[in-house]
């Protein structure tokens, strides 16, 4: 555990109806950094997040906030965290401004100057012109801004963002990214889950990739790609190559079948594998690009993640 780790979780486990959803998960997050929690549907991201912010109890393992065990200092730890859930949980009975004020009453010790804090958040999130409107009157992007602003009203040190840009248009997404970047610069530790790989790549200092409840990789996004996928991705039009031959070669040489996206095969390769690939399929025409987290995500979703992690 690094000295500045605000959140440390060790050996987290959770099962539902006899099925292990999270299995011995370790993670940590430092102040002023963003930890991206990634993985295909059913990987255990939301369950992990819910255990971390106390919505559900882990069966095993421990969670520490600023060195304090969550189980023993639950209220004190919850005072440190802010949660922006995936679903709209805004209080539609109150105005935008009132949402912030009322939400602040759910925390103790109270914020010393709530008027100043609410004004600051309304300004920071561009909500001042909408302060007296109902959340129902806001666009999707502004609702999301209000959700994030509300989760910060009590000045937490750790922020959980569960798919903060799902359903937003590109401009609103960029605005949320800007806000996340600002909050990180202010020293918040942020735990982010997202399905958008470009978002995870841009925002995360470190990514934790989950598959079937287990951490299959952790590290800085670029380092992860280099380690797991290699330096290149060959994009091969399906018409250029016989599917069976490609799959056979990929399984033998790479340990996993390549991903198929519409009419293209996407084959992650190291430099040496790229040479071998060219030699194996000399007549195939293909392009080569840098790998992205999306390639890694597709690789894991293919269901052969253990093979994908075999050193190449």
């Amino acid at each position, binding site marked *: 555990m690094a000295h500045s780790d605000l959140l440390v979780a060790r050996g987290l486990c959770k099962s*539902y109806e006899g099925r292990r959803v999270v299995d011995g998960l370790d993670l940590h997050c430092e102040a002023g950094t963003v930890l991206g929690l990634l993985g295909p549907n059913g990987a255990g991201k939301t369950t992990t997040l819910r255990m971390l*912010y106390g*919505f*559900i*109890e882990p069966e095993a393992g421990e969670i520490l906030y600023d060195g304090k065990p969550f189980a023993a200092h639950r*209220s004190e730890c*919850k*005072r440190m965290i802010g*949660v922006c*859930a995936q*679903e*709209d*949980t*805004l*209080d*539609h*009975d*109150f105005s935008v401004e009132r949402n912030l004020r*009322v*939400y602040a*009453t*759910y*925390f*103790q010790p109270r914020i010393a100057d709530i008027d100043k804090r609410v004004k600051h958040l309304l300004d920071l999130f561009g909500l001042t012109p909408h302060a007296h409107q109902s959340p129902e009157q806001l666009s999707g992007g502004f609702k999301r801004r209000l959700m994030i602003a509300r*989760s910060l009203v*009590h000045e937490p040190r750790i922020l959980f963002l569960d798919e903060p840009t799902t359903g937003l248009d590109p401009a609103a997404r960029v605005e949320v990214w800007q806000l996340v970047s600002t909050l990180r610069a202010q020293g918040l530790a942020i735990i982010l889950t997202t399905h958008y790989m470009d978002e995870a790549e841009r925002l995360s200092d470190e990514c934790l990739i989950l598959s079937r409840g287990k951490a299959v990789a952790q590290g800085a996004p670029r380092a992860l790609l280099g380690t797991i996928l290699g330096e290149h991705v060959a994009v091969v039009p399906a018409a250029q190559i016989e599917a069976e031959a490609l799959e056979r070669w990929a399984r033998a040489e790479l340990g996993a079948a390549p991903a198929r996206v519409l009419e293209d095969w996407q084959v992650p390769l190291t430099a040496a594998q790229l040479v071998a690939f060219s030699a194996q399929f000399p007549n195939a025409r293909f392009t080569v690009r840098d790998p992205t987290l999306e390639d890694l995500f597709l690789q894991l979703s293919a269901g052969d993640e253990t093979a994908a992690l075999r050193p190449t």
Partner: protein
Amino acid sequence: MTWNPYLGDLADWRTRAVFVRNTRVYLRNWRTAFLPPAIEPIVSFLAFGLGLGAYVGSVQYKGSAVGYASYMAPGLLAQTVFATPFFEALYSSYVRMFYQKTWDGLLATQVELRHIVWGEITWASARGVLNATVVACVLGGLNLLGVVHLQWHWLPLLPLVGFVAGWSFAAFALIFTAIVPSIDHMNYPVFLVGVPLGLISNTYFPLPVHNPVLAALVQCNPIYHLSESFRSLLLRGEPDMHLVWLLLTSSVFLLVCATLAQRLVRKRVLGE
């Protein structure tokens, strides 16, 4: 923390925060929230107290003949004390839990589910006091007009007595809130539980109980003791043993129902 682990949370600031949140919403909509409790007893009173009462004439109450309108008036108050928390904890709590996701928002704060449950129960009971106060004012007005003959000086106290009973009715309703699959299924607790309990409670008519099983059931029914204790205070001007039974049955009812509601709500919301 008391011997019942849930009761310790009753006085917690987080329970108060949930209660205050619901109060704020009520105060925001007070004009519309105020209308039903003011209109409904007047309509019921006109229809049953005066309309039906004209045919019934008088009924026997503890050896004396009492006009039906006066007999029914305490029952009307008791019915409000029962129905308001019951429906508030049934429908409004369900809407806050399922549709509005208000509880999910609260659970992301220092507020825990057990505080939400106590906050909802206490709020529903307080809502019963508010509505009962409006009904008491209406009855006070009818008393002034000479339509009913009540020991009116007891009226201000009764909504507060109803607060204790309202707690148990709200906790009882929250059990169903936790288990009904959808809001359409609320008809089951309303018509299979709420309405029959209201019927065997002497609210609108004296119940001739000859069957010993039914008699025992009636004795365990807090609504029965509620309407009878109100009747004794408003018609005779003195408390009787029903008041003691009301506090006793309500306390037992509250303890059992609140404990069960906590467990069932936890299972529904947290899946535990």
